[in-house]
Every structure is written in structure tokens, then in C-alpha cells.
């Protein structure tokens, strides 16, 4: 079902773009842009909800109830719910869009791996899954025209992990993986919501995420097909641009100490 609903359609869209532009690296970038555009409303909602939650947590009213009911969890939960309702905040508002985006990103990752097909066995599912009617739209999308996919993009083979060989060096330099690590770090830093208290749980978690995510994606890019690294880089850059377009980029996070948001006055939800 996952394959039928997500991976196969994604693979066919990716192949269709490839048929039109004739370059698999460019196809990955264009499809990444397409995915980001489609999921933009969800992302915008997530950013908005996240900002509202941050604002709430920095408010005096929130701090007061935390202190007042610190020994009565049930009452604290009731009071928190009351404030959420008063301010019109959905406490899961920033989680749900992420949860919806996550399968899309995983599906996209799988479709790239499938389309690249570095071995005959991987190609079985690719050949099996190509929609026969695609060739009615353009002959360039027929099985004959699509297979084999030219996986060469700039200096890399998108089906293999990337290394730049420098004469005299016994090992290759993983340039793309380094760029993935850097762009992920920059994106995480730029899009991190500053916390009122650097010692609170969210701030600590954000700090850890800003280290963990770049390392994780660096590791993937080091070991997996470089087509994925192209996707990670494109995704990171577009992500930064999306945040910038929404006015949510915190340049101070990158170059200086994070600026804590001012405590906001309580806003009534209009009831």
C-alpha cells in the first residue's frame, strides 16, 4: 500500500521530470522544489504554531501557573488547557504538520533510491513500477527511453557515494557529504526558535538537534548514493528560503548568541 500510494507515484513523477529535462540531478532538485511547494502550507502552519507556543511559554501567565501548580500535575494540565483555549493554540499544531511531512520525505527518499537502481535487483521494482501511460504523454518517458537512467551529474555518479579524488591523497574527499553537514547545520541554526530561558528543555533539545541532525545527514551522505546528498542539499537550501520568505530566519543564531523573545502579553482569543 505504501509502495502503491507513495513510492511508486513519486518515482514516476521523478522519472517524468527526468524525461523532460534529461538530467537526473536536475530532476531531483526540481522534484525537491515541487515537494517543498506542496508541503509549504503545512510548514507555514507548523512555524506559526511553533512561534505561538514559544510566545506562550515566555509569557508571565504561563510561568506563574508552572510555579503555582508545580506539585499538582492534574491541576497544571487543566490550567494549561485553559490557556491553550483562551489563546486559540493547538498544542499539537506544530507536531502534526511535521508528522504529515515525514512520510512524504521518506517516500521521496525511497523513490530516489529506486530510480537510481544501482544493481539489477533494485531495477526490478523500477521497471515493474513505471506507468505505461507515461509514454503517451511523451515518448521520452517510455521504458526504452528511460532505462538506463544517466546517473551522471556534474562530477558525480548519483548512484554511488561521492568522493573527490585529489592526486597524492590516499583517500577521497566527501565534498557533498560535507556540504550536506554544513547546510543542515546552517538551516537548523537559522530556523531555530530562540528560547526565553537557554536552560529550558526546548532550548537544550534545539541545541542537541543542531548538532545531531547535521551529523546524521553527513553520515547518510557519506555512505549512501550521492543522489540523496543532492536531495538533502536542495532541501536544506529551499527550507532556508522558505523560512526567509516567512520572515522566520534568525540570522543572530548563526553569527551570535540567540536572541530571546520578549515575554508577550496575554491575548484573548476573542471569546
Amino acid at each position, binding site marked *: 500500500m505504501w509502495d502503491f500510494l507513495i513510492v511508486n507515484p513519486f518515482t514516476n513523477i521523478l522519472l517524468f521530470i527526468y524525461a523532460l529535462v534529461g538530467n537526473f540531478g536536475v530532476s531531483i532538485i526540481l522534484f525537491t522544489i515541487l515537494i517543498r511547494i506542496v508541503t509549504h502550507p503545512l510548514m507555514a502552519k507548523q512555524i506559526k504554531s511553533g512561534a505561538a507556543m514559544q510566545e506562550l511559554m515566555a509569557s508571565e501567565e504561563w510561568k506563574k501557573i508552572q510555579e503555582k501548580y508545580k506539585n499538582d500535575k492534574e491541576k497544571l494540565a487543566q490550567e494549561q488547557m485553559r490557556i491553550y483555549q483562551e489563546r486559540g493554540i493547538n498544542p499539537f499544531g506544530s507536531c502534526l504538520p511535521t508528522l504529515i511531512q515525514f512520510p512524504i520525505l*521518506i517516500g521521496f*527518499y*525511497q523513490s*530516489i*533510491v*529506486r530510480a*537510481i537502481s*544501482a*544493481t*539489477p*535487483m*533494485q*531495477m*526490478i521494482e523500477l*521497471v*515493474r513500477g513505471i506507468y505505461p501511460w507515461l509514454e503517451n504523454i511523451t515518448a521520452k518517458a517510455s*521504458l*526504452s527511453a528511460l*532505462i*538506463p537512467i*544517466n*546517473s*551522471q551529474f556534474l562530477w558525480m*555518479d548519483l*548512484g*554511488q*557515494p561521492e568522493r573527490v579524488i585529489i592526486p597524492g591523497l590516499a583517500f577521497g574527499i566527501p565534498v557533498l557529504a560535507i556540504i550536506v553537514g554544513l547546510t543542515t547545520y546552517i538551516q537548523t541554526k537559522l530556523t531555530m526558535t530562540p528560547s526565553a530561558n537557554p536552560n529550558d*528543555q526546548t532550548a*537544550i*533539545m534545539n541545541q*542537541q*538537534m543542531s548538532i*545531531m541532525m547535521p551529523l*546524521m545527514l553527513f*553520515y*547518510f551522505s557519506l*555512505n*549512501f*548514493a550521492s543522489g540523496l546528498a543532492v536531495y538533502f542539499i536542495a532541501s536544506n537550501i529551499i527550507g532556508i528560503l522558505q523560512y526567509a520568505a516567512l520572515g522566520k530566519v534568525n540570522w543572530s543564531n548563526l553569527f551570535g548568541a540567540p536572541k530571546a523573545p520578549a515575554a508577550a502579553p496575554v491575548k484573548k482569543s476573542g471569546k
Partner: protein
Amino acid sequence: MKFNRMFLFALFILLTLALSACGAPPATNWPGLSTDGNLIYLSANSHVYLVQAQNGTETTVNLSGKVTPLRFPLEFDGRMSFYAPVALAPQGVFIVGSASSTGHALYAAQASNASIVWAFEGTKPWLAGPLLLGETVFAPAGDGYLYAFDLNGGKRWEKKLSEHALWTSPVTDGEHLYLATLDHMLYCLDPQSGDILWSKDLENGIIGAPALSEGVLYLGTLSGNLYAIQAADGNVKWVKTLEGSIWGTPGLRDETLYVGTVFGRSGKFYALEAATGDVKWFRDEEGSIVAGPLVLDEQVIYVTEMGRVQSLDLNGAPQWQDNFEKNKIYTPPLLVNDMIVVAPMGSQFLMVAYDRNGAKKWTFTPAQ
């Protein structure tokens, strides 16, 4: 604080597992089988296993007083993985290329102790088996070149044949080499010089190596076209379109061709007149047929993606079958002396041997 760290660690592990399990790693393919009659060489992931054909046990070697299973490499090496059937050279040497994404060498190794005799550093994974003709090894590589080496590893020539990796092994009639490529081409080459004598565009991807008999090459394409092509000049004798795509090398006996197809999730198994391409009979299968069949005097054996080993008589009547539920079989069955050896994937056994009546003779699981 502790919770956060644990949460992040768990998230990291989950994401790693999710991403690495969701898509197969770049160099994962079906196992390769070869034999010299005494030993079966099974190229399966991290090792080439050297298994005694008689009883299916791994050969052992005594190294500095320690008895170790004889496999190549003796110890796990992350830069090596093997899927191609090995080529057997004189003096107990076998030749196989690594399909790892991090190590791209073609190795000649000594079967008696798994030591490396020579190695050639390539730039991409090796997925097709090499061919030995006289004193020359012809090795199709992941960089699209066909390389020719002497038996000491000296390079005689190289020829760029494809922009894509070469996935099929060359075949020979003793005078010429024939090699098919994923980018639709069939080549005839001079083994001495590597010069292309003729080439033919078959307009679709070719994964299975051609079968060669009496001056005619038989091969199929991913579009389901089965071709008979004159080996002398590359002219098409006949072409027949079958249902599904053709992935394996056709089998041939007594003027009849046998070939299976991948038809969606299912498969079809065909018997055709070798002279004309007319279908004599066909049989529907639940699972796709990726591997080429094994044709014997009195029966034809094929394997399916649903883990079935199926024997038919030469008129298509079922003889015997075995099923590996939840396992897949993509490797062509191999005749070893009087046994039929298959290599299922995902099974507790890496190999199973049957007699000609389908009775299991032995199973092989590598020693830990």
C-alpha cells in the same frame, strides 16, 4: 536532560534504521554461483564461500594452528562485497570483482587459502561475472569498460562500451566475444584487440547475457522482445515479443528455447522453437521469473521471485517443485555433477542442493 538525550538518541537510531531499511543499499544484488565440480563458489554479500559440492560443507583451512572456514576474504572487510559468479582460472585461482560501494577492486584469489594473487583497482562496483578465454580474463566493469587481463593481472586492453555500468557477462564461441549492455546494445568484439566487429541496437535494456548456439545468439530485452541474432554479422534472424520483460539468459536444448518473464508481480515461462521463435507452450507462474532456467536432458528447472523451484518435463508438464515461502530466488539454478543447486535470498540457507527427482541432498548455512 536525560530524557532529551535518550529521546534524541532513539530518534537518531530510528531514522537511521528507517532510512537504511527503506531503500536497499547501492550494491545489493542476488548471489552468484560457479563450480569446478569439486567446489561451489557462492558470491553472497561479504564473502565468496567455497563449499564442497559433495556434502555442502564449507572447506576449512588451518592458519597458524587455527582452523577457519575457507572463504574470501577470510575476515570480514567492509570494502568487499560479492554478487557476481566467479571465473575459474588455472592453478586453483578464481577471479571476482567487489560490488561494494566503497571498494572497487577485481581480485584474483587462491582457492586453497583465499590469499590474493593480484588485484586491479577499479572505480565502480563490479556486478557482472568475468569470463576466461584461453589465458585472458575479460571483466565487465561498473565504469562501462570491458577490461582484458592476462593471468598475472597485467592489463591487455580496455574498451568503453557503455555510459552505464556493465551488468552482463560476456559470452564466447572461442573466437569472438559477445556482450550486451543496459543501454540497448549488443556488441561483438575481437578478444585479441577489443575492437568492435559489429554492434546492434536492440532498442531496450538488456540484463541477461545471450545464449549462444550454432552461430546464433538468443537474448531478451526489458520490453519483452526475444531475439535470435546471427553471431557472424549481427543480423536479426527473428524477434518475438513475449508478455513481460526478460531478465535472464534463455536456456536451449534440442531446438527449443526456454525463457521466463517478469509480468507485473507474476511471471510466464515459455518454450519456443529456436528456429522460428514460435511459441510451443507457455505456463503461468504466480511469481516473476528473473533468472534463466537450467535445461537438462529430461527436464527444465526454473526459479521464481516467490521462492519456488519448479521442474517441468520438456513438454511443460510439472515434475517436482519446492517452495521457500517468504524468500526470493533470482540466481539461475546451477548443475553441479548430478545435483541442482539453488541460492535463495533471505532464507536460513544460502544454498540448497537437490537430486534430479527433487529430493534435497543438502543445505548450506555458513559457519559462524
